[in-house]
């Protein structure tokens, strides 16, 4: 575990499998989507979204890729479109999806398989 001190060698582009580094580039791309999801902290906004998803997405200026990802409840596509998981979790809450449901959706497992994988990690 000998590594140089963090500093000028910091590299955003270093590739970590299955992981999107949410940096300025992604923050710019996902701003509208994340702003919409942030609004879901308030109950009246959650209700407005449920009442008319398309109108709500339009109001926040989501682009087509973001809208399509939301329509399809496709978490990986939301992340690719700039979504940040902390805000997306608020959208998931509207659909009553837990972080374990989200984990299963993103890894292509059933929720039971995903939970079993976590339990196995504790036995290692």
């Amino acid at each position, binding site marked *: 575990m000998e590594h140089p001190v963090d500093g000028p060698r910091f590299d955003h582009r270093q590739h970590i499998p299955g*992981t999107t580094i949410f940096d300025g580039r992604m923050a710019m791309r996902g701003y509208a989507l994340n702003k919409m999801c942030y609004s879901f902290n308030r109950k009246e906004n959650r209700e407005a979204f449920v009442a008319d998803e398309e109108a709500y997405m339009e109001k926040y200026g989501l682009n087509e890729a973001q809208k399509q990802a939301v329509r399809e409840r496709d978490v990986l596509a939301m992340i690719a479109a700039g979504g*940040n998981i902390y805000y997306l979790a608020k959208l998931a809450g509207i659909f009553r999806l837990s972080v374990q449901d989200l*984990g299963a959706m993103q890894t292509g497992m059933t929720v039971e398989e995903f939970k079993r994988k976590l339990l196995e*990690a504790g036995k290692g």
Partner: protein
Amino acid sequence: MARILGGISTSHIPAVGNAIANNLQDDPYWKPFFDGYPPIHAWLAEHRPDVVINIYNDHGLGFFLDQMPTFAIGAAHEYRNEDEGWGIPQLDPFPGFPELSWHIIESMVADEFDITSCQELPVDHGFVVPMQLFWPGAPHNPDMPRAIPVSANTVQHPIPTLRRALNFGRALRKAVLGWPEDIKVVVLGTGGLSHQLDGERAGFINPEFDRYCLEHIVHDPDRLTRITRMELVEKAGAQGTEFLMWMMMRGALGDNVREVTRNYHIPISNTASGTLLLECIE
């Protein structure tokens, strides 16, 4: 003069709030997690701190990406636990200590830490779950200290380095020790340990790395400052970067500490959960 009694770190998984609301402490899934806390309750009952500095990371309640402070300190009379959007029970407001907050802000900015001061700051599960774990019934536990929230950005990169986090804690210590009244302070570091919620690697947990961090944070935290931020993402998971809060807490405790108790359990929700109580040796 103010004293820092010690520091307590813990995971702050939102599901814990629901487990407490539903009295699941003895449920087989939850028991190995909740069993970590009675030794901490005993220590708090013995030492009765007057103030708790709660170092946590906001998850999109207090701050949005429009204005994202790297380090924020609450300076309010009270902190409201507002709706986060997914139905965990909301608690009553936590009483603050704005005079001490401003003293800390003055001292830290003089020490060249550029602080965002917050006269209003809604607090999320990162702040309230640890309070519930340490002071059951919070904020209505009769021993509940007055609170000062400190939030560090782990929502978007660039996040602070581990070295900056540790040095932040050291400057915080200097600030607190400069407060003239005889008060007893405990510092919390909340979040972690390894976990990842997003991407194809969701569910990633790394016990080997967690144990390395737990091992060295007690007596050699400077060693951990060699870990780069990208290495932290890689080894602890995208949300395991919350370990920065543990580093901030550790910096506030001075060089000499005694480990009182620790617990480590996998999994709670998607997370490797950990708690650690370090007592300062004067």
